[in-house]
């Protein structure tokens, strides 16, 4: 086991990494550990080498762009991760046991629609508009803060919020877009139409539920499991 760098030297490494435009604290930690491990090994082999010389030598192993490609790849990887988590939730309703719930919901909406109701498709989407407004109300009351500090300090939260803004805005896009393009005339749904509309409404409702209740929980769980050392506080 090599002798560890002092607290002061580790702080110098943090300063160095920051000076190379790595502003995200979670990424800084990973780079600092790597630099520190390399320097420790170098000093174990050659105790006369100074901290500054060792750091210069270790940094020369990074590409000419410094840490930029590392941060960019980490950003892509985290965005991919959040996408996967959210779609994982959506697709879970295509598998047992949740498919039973989704199937039941589709069946109920299909029953309502095929019952000869005299409504326009626009009126139908009122359900979704109400759900979307409820999700905003819930987020406003119980959601965490979107302050700049929280957004820009950590790459994990920055990528999360960028993705979250996208899926949350879809809560409004789905119902409003369809309500605007739908015919204003009263429609009597035939069986095929009623099944299709029922599926569409259920997918939208699951999306709204996921973006309002499930996805924020995923962030809290992620921060507790993998980033507890950073003590990231979200309201």
């Amino acid at each position, binding site marked *: 086991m090599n002798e*560890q760098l002092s*607290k002061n030297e580790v702080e110098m490494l943090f300063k160095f990494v920051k000076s190379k435009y790595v502003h995200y604290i979670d990424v800084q930690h990973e780079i600092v*550990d790597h630099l520190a*491990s390399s320097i420790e090994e170098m000093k174990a082999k050659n105790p006369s080498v100074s901290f500054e010389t060792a750091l210069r030598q270790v940094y020369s*192993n990074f590409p000419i762009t410094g840490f930029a*490609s590392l941060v960019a*790849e980490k950003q892509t990887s985290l965005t991919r*991760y959040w996408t996967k988590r959210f779609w994982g939730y959506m697709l879970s309703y295509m598998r047992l046991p949740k498919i039973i719930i989704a199937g039941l919901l589709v069946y109920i909406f299909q029953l309502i629609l095929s019952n000869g109701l005299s409504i326009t498709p626009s009126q139908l989407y009122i359900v979704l508009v109400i759900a979307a407004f409820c999700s905003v109300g819930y987020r406003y009351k119980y959601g965490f803060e979107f302050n700049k500090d929280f957004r820009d300090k950590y790459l994990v939260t920055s990528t999360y919020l960028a993705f979250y803004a996208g899926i949350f805005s879809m809560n409004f896009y789905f119902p409003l877009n369809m309500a605007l393009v739908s015919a204003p005339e009263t429609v009597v749904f035939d069986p095929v139409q009623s099944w299709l509309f029922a599926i569409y409404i259920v997918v939208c409702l699951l999306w709204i539920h996921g973006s309002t209740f499930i996805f924020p929980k995923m962030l809290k769980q992620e921060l507790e499991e*993998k980033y507890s*050392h950073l003590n990231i506080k979200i309201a």
Partner: protein
Amino acid sequence: MLPKNLRYIFTNMNKKLLRGSLETIVIKLLSDNQEMYGYEITQKVKELTDDDFKITEGALYPTLHKLEGKGILECSTRSIGNRFRKYYSLTEAGQSELVIMLQDMEDYIKNMQLILNPRLS
């Protein structure tokens, strides 16, 4: 000893081959060692290949992050004295990916040998 220009060509060729095989190397090492941190991986590769293969940090971390994003690796962070260290390990998906990658690599090596050393009929 190779002339300087030829040495340059071979070193570059080696780097390209290494970059193309980096995912397989990382997954195989993590499968054999349960969990490792970034620097440890670079050192292990050097040790196993008698300093012949040198994985640069600029290539390793993007690969680790890419594999993490794909759900092949997972990580945990632990305190080691006055700093934190991130350990990578294989997920279940990573274990199955390893089998496929090793098979692909074996087939690739076999085919390369057939091309480079064709048997005389």
